[in-house]
């Protein structure tokens, strides 16, 4: 029978098919763990006298709480320090591999899996973090879980899961210069809404998706949850295999060949039926920014702050009024005229090496606006090392940016990297919720290119605002497709 990519991966992991309304019991190939959502799960195991069933399918890293400065000194915040120490104790007690702060393999959990070659096509991947959807970029079925489920996976390496529906999101055409995968996903969320994907696994497909690098695909799948979908997937192809080959945990020899043969079957059949379909034309896209307090409240940068009185739907109008009040924005203001105080470049959405390269390309030889603080936080220690090997750190420092150690940082402000009340950011992260980046902080979600241009001009900007001289080494304008671009 014809099937979708998601159904194929699901079916290959059924330990026990649910009967009489009970969910299927699925096997979990890879369980990623971090310090925030795991302490109560390990405590549950301890109380029940249960071991971790498969420590060899489990890996932990410290990311949410970790400072990005002075990482060689004791963590100043006592509760953060306790939580991280708790993870260290639990990992030691239960035999779980842990990459701690200061270790070269430490970093945001969704960067660590892919860079070690642990994330691969056809797997089920879970983590107590909603951005686990990131790993779907490899053709894995990957989704965030709550702490009770973390405990369940630790104890049984399985999860009972209710069936999902499938949604195909086809992005045709070619991205215009200056637009990136971030703009694709922000446009998708604005189109289907923050609840549009609820109950669905999204599959991104089409010419514009195929043209994206692995890292750009991760950005798209990462934000599936912001459309309400637990998981987003992209069928694996040569780009995927190329990214994986030679990574520390990638299969080798005959195992690699067997894996690739299987991975090539992981695509939705031509006659597969999706429960819903959405189509987008990439060439219509512009750089996208959010103006409100959920990721669905986004518009092209050339637009103006919406006028709530013009919104017909009452719920949406009230939500828009509330959002504009929180954001301190006047209806009708052109988005390009909004000044920001902080530019944050980082997170599991846009803190990878390609993101840093594309920012470096724009800011090289320039100075940031005096009024703006710029934070560059690589998604992992390895990404930081790679950036330094390429000289990107010096470009950022010369620009006037701060070059930090790896972690989640200002994406959610669990460490000292926070916005002050009323402070406004352009952020390459994934959530613009009230208080997300610090109590009273105001967040505009943007792509790395928009973040770079905004850091230069001090107001929300695209690279087009910088004049025609921002180009890739081959003379063409900057887009995600310049994945292999090296700084000149």
């Amino acid at each position, binding site marked *: 029978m014809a099937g979708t990519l998601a159904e194929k991966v699901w079916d290959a992991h059924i330990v*026990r098919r649910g009967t009489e309304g009970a969910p299927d019991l699925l096997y979990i190939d890879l369980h990623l763990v971090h310090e925030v*959502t795991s302490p109560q799960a390990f405590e549950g195991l301890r109380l029940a006298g249960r071991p971790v069933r498969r420590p060899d399918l489990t890996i932990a890293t410290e990311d949410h709480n970790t400072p990005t400065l002075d990482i060689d000194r004791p963590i100043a915040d006592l509760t953060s320090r306790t939580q991280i120490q708790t993870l260290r104790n639990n990992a030691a007690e239960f035999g779980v591999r842990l990459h701690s702060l200061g*270790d*070269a393999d430490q970093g945001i959990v969704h960067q660590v899996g892919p860079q070690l*070659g642990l994330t691969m096509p056809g797997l089920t991947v879970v983590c107590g973090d909603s951005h686990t959807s990131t790993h779907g970029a490899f053709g894995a079925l990957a989704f965030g879980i*709550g702490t009770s*489920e973390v405990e369940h996976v630790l104890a049984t390496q399985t999860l009972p899961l209710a069936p999902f529906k499938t949604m195909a999101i086809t992005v045709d055409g070619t991205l215009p210069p200056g637009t990136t995968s971030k703009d694709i996903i922000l446009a998708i969320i604005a189109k289907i809404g923050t609840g549009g994907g609820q109950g669905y696994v999204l599959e991104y497909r089409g010419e514009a998706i195929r043209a994206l690098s692995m890292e750009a695909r991760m950005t798209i799948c990462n934000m599936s949850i912001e459309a309400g979908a637990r998981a987003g997937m992209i069928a694996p192809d040569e780009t995927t295999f190329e990214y994986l080959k030679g990574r520390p945990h990638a299969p080798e020899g005959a195992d690699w060949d*067997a894996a690739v043969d299987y991975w090539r079957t992981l695509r939705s059949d031509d006659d597969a039926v999706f429960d819903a379909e959405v189509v987008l034309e990439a060439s219509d896209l512009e750089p996208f920014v959010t103006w409100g307090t959920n990721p669905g409240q986004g518009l092209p940068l050339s637009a103006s702050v919406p006028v709530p009185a013009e919104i017909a739907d009452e719920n949406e109008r009230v939500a828009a009024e509330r959002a504009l009040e929180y954001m301190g924005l006047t209806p009708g203001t052109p988005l390009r005229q909004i000044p920001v105080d902080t530019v944050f470049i980082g997170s599991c959405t846009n803190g990878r090496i390609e993101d840093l390269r594309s920012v470096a390309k724009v800011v090289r030889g320039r100075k940031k606006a005096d009024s703006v603080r710029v934070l560059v936080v690589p998604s992992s220690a390895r990404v930081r090392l790679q950036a330094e090997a390429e000289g990107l750190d010096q470009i950022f420092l010369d620009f006037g940016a701060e070059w930090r150690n790896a972690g989640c940082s200002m994406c959610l402000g669990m460490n000292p990297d926070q916005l002050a009340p009323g402070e406004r950011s352009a952020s390459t992260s994934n959530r613009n*919720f009230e*208080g997300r980046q610090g109590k009273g902080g105001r967040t505009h979600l943007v792509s790395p290119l928009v973040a770079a241009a905004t850091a230069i001009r001090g107001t929300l900007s695209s690279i087009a605002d910088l004049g025609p001289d921002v180009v890739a080494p081959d003379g063409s304008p900057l887009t995600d497709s310049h994945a292999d671009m090296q700084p000149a």
Partner: protein
Amino acid sequence: MEKFAQHTGVGVPLRRSNVDTDQIIPAVYLKRVTRTGFEDALFAAWRGDPEFVLNQDAYRPGSVLVAGPDFGTGSSREHAVWALKDYGFRAVLSPRFADIFRGNSGKQGLLAAQVAQEDIELIWKVLETHPGTEVTVDLVAKQARCADVVVPIHVDDYTRWRLMEGLDDIGLTLQHEAEITEFESRREPWRPLTLPAKHLPPVEIVAARPVVPTLPTGDDALV
């Protein structure tokens, strides 16, 4: 887990849509390593506002939250469920829940019941006209009752059964351990193992330092 068949308690009208888990409990409260004691963190950013519904005496003892659509979106933090429970909530009614939140609720014995938007409006009207009115959520009859308003609630059959029986998921799954072991015996060799650990060579990571303004030196310092 405690069995849940029916609950009656003061209804709290939360006239907001898209109440994400960052609003239910901000990230700064997630640093605790316990599973209880989160009641002060619930809706922390809004609790400072005297107008906020939970700051009004009639609603303060509430245990049934009646919210707008897309409740519990965003972060997977189960702390959102713990905070609601610790405050005293036993049930949340909404036209639509985020998937992860709904799953987390079921595991913790908090009833997340779907109710049509027009029915939510009816309950809101009663609760706002007569603050302090109780709402009964009845899993057996699959309905919510509030004064003379009686509306259907939707909970999937499996979650309903587990809540009514008070069953623990891990215990249920471990009844099938033989099947899990059998599945594992068929695992293909290309699928990854995290142990023994493989990685690129270890490298020392240099700590970033705070940017401090350059202090005046030499003659300038004397001025």
